[in-house]
């Protein structure tokens, strides 16, 4: 338990560090939300000055950081200039949508990567393995932007799937089952893109990890004992290969978040991605900081989950931790 507690404290410090860094960068940055207004002759410099005071843009950096920290403690995460509301409620809705997308994509990608990777490792160097390797190499070379746009074009031309958005306009009038179907059809394209971009990396790692274990003497002994092949592969080999794969899971959350950011924008999915882009374009400072921080929290949660899983799956870590 102490091992996990140590990890938790580390992540808290990481978050504080990131929040401070983003603040520092933002204070170095030229321009502010009010720049657009300054060009507008109808807004007097009086108004601008009072707005600056209201948004506290005239305060020095430490003061602003302290105020922001206070609002963070109150659960507001600062104030959005463009939306004229505290940042946190804005983020919650968007974050929920992003999570919906990334969690689904993660589950599907792993559900595909594990059996395919094991199959590939089992037939190492033979036809299925070669075919899978070729496909992964190809998928690896197609960037997510290109893939997302390609799928979008296919969907638009076939007219079968919606090309953007979260739910249909008539969502409220649908029955629960139809609601689910509507949501699923809207999720299909972004999730497919995310799965296709993360799958090749996962597949390669599963293949490598399992192939390494398959050579081990204990597995040959187990095979000689007449343990069925399926149980051998999934019960023994995958278990022994779990360690690097769980670490990879922690890493893959980060890549998935990045991928999701772009996919959300391209497919106009109302997640954190479009919010961040809008905030950057409008110089909506606290929304930018809040979004980056939220993504960090997701990342940290993913890594923490990986740690917990590792703790559970790998007896070596448990004994190491208890020795300490």
């Amino acid at each position, binding site marked *: 338990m102490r091992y996990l507690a140590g990890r938790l404290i580390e992540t808290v410090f990481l978050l504080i560090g990131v929040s401070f860094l983003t603040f520092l*960068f933002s204070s170095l940055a030229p321009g502010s939300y009010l720049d657009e207004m300054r060009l507008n002759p109808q807004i007097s410099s009086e108004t601008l000055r009072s707005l600056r005071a209201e948004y506290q843009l005239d305060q020095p950096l430490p003061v602003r950081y302290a105020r922001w920290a206070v609002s963070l403690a109150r659960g507001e995460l600062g104030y959005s200039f463009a939306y004229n509301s505290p940042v946190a409620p804005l983020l919650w809705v968007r974050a929920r949508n992003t999570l919906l997308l990334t969690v689904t994509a993660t589950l599907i990608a792993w559900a595909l990567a594990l059996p395919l990777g094991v199959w590939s490792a089992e037939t190492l160097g033979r036809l299925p393995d070669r075919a899978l390797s070729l496909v992964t190499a190809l998928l690896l070379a197609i960037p997510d*932007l290109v893939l997302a746009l390609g799928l979008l*074009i296919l969907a638009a031309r076939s007219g079968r799937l919606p090309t953007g958005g979260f739910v249909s306009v008539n969502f409220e009038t649908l029955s629960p089952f139809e609601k689910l179907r509507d949501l699923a059809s809207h999720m299909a394209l972004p999730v497919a893109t995310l799965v296709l971009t993360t799958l090749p990396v996962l597949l390669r790692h599963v293949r490598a990890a399992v192939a390494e274990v398959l050579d081990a003497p204990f597995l040959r002994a187990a095979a000689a004992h007449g343990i069925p092949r399926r149980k051998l592969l999934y019960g023994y080999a995958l278990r022994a290969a779990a360690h690097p794969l769980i670490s990879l899971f922690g890493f893959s959350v980060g890549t998935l*978040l990045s991928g999701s950011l772009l996919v959300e*924008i391209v497919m106009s999915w109302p997640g954190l991605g479009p919010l961040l882009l809008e905030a*950057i374009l409008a110089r909506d400072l606290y929304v930018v900081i809040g979004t980056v921080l939220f993504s960090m929290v997701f990342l940290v949660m993913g890594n923490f989950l990986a740690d917990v899983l590792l703790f559970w799956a790998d007896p070596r870590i448990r004994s190491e931790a208890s020795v300490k």
Partner: protein
Amino acid sequence: MIGRLQLKFWLVTLGVIHLAIVGAGFFAPYDPAEQDRENPYSPPMKIRLVDEHGRIHLRPFFYATRPSERSFGRVEEDPDKMGQMYFFVSGPSYRLLGFIPARLHLFGAEGSRFHLLGTDGFGRDLFSRILYGGQVSLLAGLLGAACTLLVGGLIGTTAGFYGGWRDVVFMRSAELFLALPWLYLLFALRAFLPLTVRPLEAFLLVVMVLGTVGWARPARLVRGVVLGAKERDFVRAARGFGASDGYLLARHILPETSGVLLTQAAILVPQFVLAEMTLSFLGLGVPEPAPSWGNLLAALQEYSVLVSYWWMYLPAFASIPFFVGYLGVANALHVDRMTGKIDSERR
């Protein structure tokens, strides 16, 4: 052995692609900003040898397009208006490599304008724009990678060679940078830089942003190599003979890092090209009218373009062989290093 062969194959492939991009002026029939106002969103044209009446022509020709009479907003081939293709013709002037003035083009058309891959909404030749756009994207990738390798190499060498508190500080912050989702990092950095800038400045900005984002991985790898090299017997011997730090680094240690740096370069260049594409696609990178692979694709953000003008997606296809090539080189380099290691261990 197979690694070598693979490496050669991919290097040649990449060489061809780079040649086409660098020599964009020669291969592209038109200037990337030149408009054909009569023909916005004209689809790719077919090169023909046989005409309407079944006659065979020795010189390749094509039919000009005209607005379709049947459906609004579409264009069709106009069998009355033919254009001939000529090779090695003189056309719009350009500067090869940015400074050699030239007029020679691989091909050109007479009688009508020829758009191999169609035109965009302003009637600009897409084929030419893809080639010229490659120059911008490629340069951003190369400069960004060079920046990153320089910064990463310096930090990695310092951390590995001198150790102590520098090692702790640099490697801790490297972990931080590696943990951050890189696109968020890229965006956050971009968010804090000026928004509306001229193309050249925007380009340099993009490169700068790219350069600062990726230093962590090469720094870690270089540090590892330097740490190993520092303890080699010949390095210790040289130190015993009174060699200075600078001499040791330049002569014995840094050459060892070349393999890692080369592989990293092959990984980083496409990554940065993609980053440039992403930023420009979202309007945060290289702005119009300068073409880049990213802002060429930006047209697809409009739904009508997405549905009706599929050829606007072609820049994406142009980038795929580029990525495949770099991936192949990185793989082959990796395999080469691995087999090289095994060979030297056997000896």
